[in-house]
């Protein structure tokens, strides 16, 4: 032990260093006491959506996951924005609640103007894209994938925004694991019949939610439907319970 090299074992490890109580990790770069770019905590899984003959329909289950723990079993992830727009969210639920309160305030302020105009789905989509891009540029993203559905000039509109502000519109949209498992089923159905009725669309989403429930470990057999049509305006249906057959899984 005559020579103590630079790799010598410290005498006192993981405890208070002389003259200090404890080294807290993570603030050596000085973010001004504000922790940026967090990770999602309570999360919702996929949102799926499709256009049909004279409307749009989206679906999201009611589970709020805490990592692998199925923590909240009755969360609504689809919100009615106004009489021609709905918003569905996957990802961090707290961030969704934050955005939801912004949107509700926007709607209220607009109502107060009382000029007969209301926010259109394209405008909401554009605004959300700017909000998400702004937060990602400050390295403090809202950890969500939003799906915006609505009727714009009586035409169906379906679009999405992610946490970077990547935005696009498509007749078929699925977020999260749904992008891998639901999109092929939905796209095939849409290519075969792009003018499906509301009843056909509801039945299709039931089947797709079933597929997701069987394979997505963070999913739940209860879901909400957000439907928007010219005749009935916005309808939020649910919670709808999925049938599943796990017979072969029981030994």
């Amino acid at each position, binding site marked *: 032990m005559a020579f103590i090299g630079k*790799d010598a*074992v*410290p005498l006192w*490890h*993981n405890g208070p260093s002389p003259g200090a109580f404890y080294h807290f990790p993570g603030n050596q770069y000085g973010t001004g006491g504000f922790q940026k*770019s967090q*990770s*999602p*905590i309570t999360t919702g899984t996929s949102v799926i959506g499709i256009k049909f003959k004279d409307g749009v329909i989206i679906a999201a289950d009611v589970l709020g996951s805490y*990592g692998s723990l199925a923590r909240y079993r009755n969360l609504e992830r689809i919100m009615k924005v106004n009489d021609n727009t709905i918003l569905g969210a996957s990802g961090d639920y707290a961030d969704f609640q934050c955005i939801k309160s912004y949107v509700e305030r926007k709607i209220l302020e607009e109502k107060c103007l009382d000029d007969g105009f209301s926010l259109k789905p394209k405008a909401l989509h554009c605004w959300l*894209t700017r909000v*998400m*891009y702004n937060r*990602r*540029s400050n*390295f403090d*993203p809202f950890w969500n994938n939003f799906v915006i559905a609505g009727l714009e000039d009586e035409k169906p509109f379906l679009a999405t925004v992610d946490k*970077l*502000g*990547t*935005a*696009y*519109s*498509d007749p078929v949209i699925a977020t999260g694991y749904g*992008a*891998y498992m639901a*999109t092929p089923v939905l796209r095939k159905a849409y290519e075969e019949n792009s003018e499906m009725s509301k009843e056909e669309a509801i039945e299709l989403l039931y089947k797709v939610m079933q597929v997701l429930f069987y394979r997505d470990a963070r999913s739940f057999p209860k879901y909400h439907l957000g439907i928007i049509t010219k005749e009935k305006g916005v309808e939020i249906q649910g919670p709808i319970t999925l049938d599943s057959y796990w017979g072969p899984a029981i030994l």
Partner: protein
Amino acid sequence: MALLTENGKGCLPDYEVQGAKKVSFSPYSDNGGSVVALAGDDFCVIAADTRLSTGFSIYTREQDKLFPLSNTTILGCSGCWCDTLTLTRLLSARMQMYKHEHQKEMTTPAAAQMLSIMLYHKRFFPYYVSNILAGLDENGKGCIYSYDPIGHCEKTTYRAGGSAGALLQPLLDNQIGYKNQEGVTPAVLTQEKAVAILKDVFTSAAERDIYTGDGISIKIITKDGIKDSSFALRKD
């Protein structure tokens, strides 16, 4: 004992605590896409594929990546889609401000210089976009400007950019620039030939580049205005 040596410092590692995991955040994503532009004596043609993707999944098969900035200028963008959306929005706002201030539309060379400045303005947090600007110059001649993400700008007569850029540029060098050929007399590029080469070039790119496919939208700029057309590519 393996644990002791593994840690390197001769003590046991800390316990892995279950709970919230830190997820790394990157403000950029690669959404693919290719743009090709060819300039002739009195026209300019620019095309971009319509696939928007990330990794192995396709977001949409019908995303237009050509943005008309004026009657004689079109910008083709590929790369990080969220940056493309922001950049083009800012650009069209500045084009409109110029128009109202000067009572005329911005020329293509002026727009090209503005774009370069706007890109360099974000030098240390760049727009991750590969831009190709096509249009007609003051004399009505076709011109193309190509950029890197931080604003380097070069004027050319033909250019391929985006995910299949490196794949297509040598092909254009050979077919449009008559490079590495012996005993040929360069012919003047016609509109028909330009469009035919464009279609071939994209068909080839779709075979080898998974981020290029689904279809292309083509815009031909002449002094009479902009003509639109489209062409299908393989969708797998």
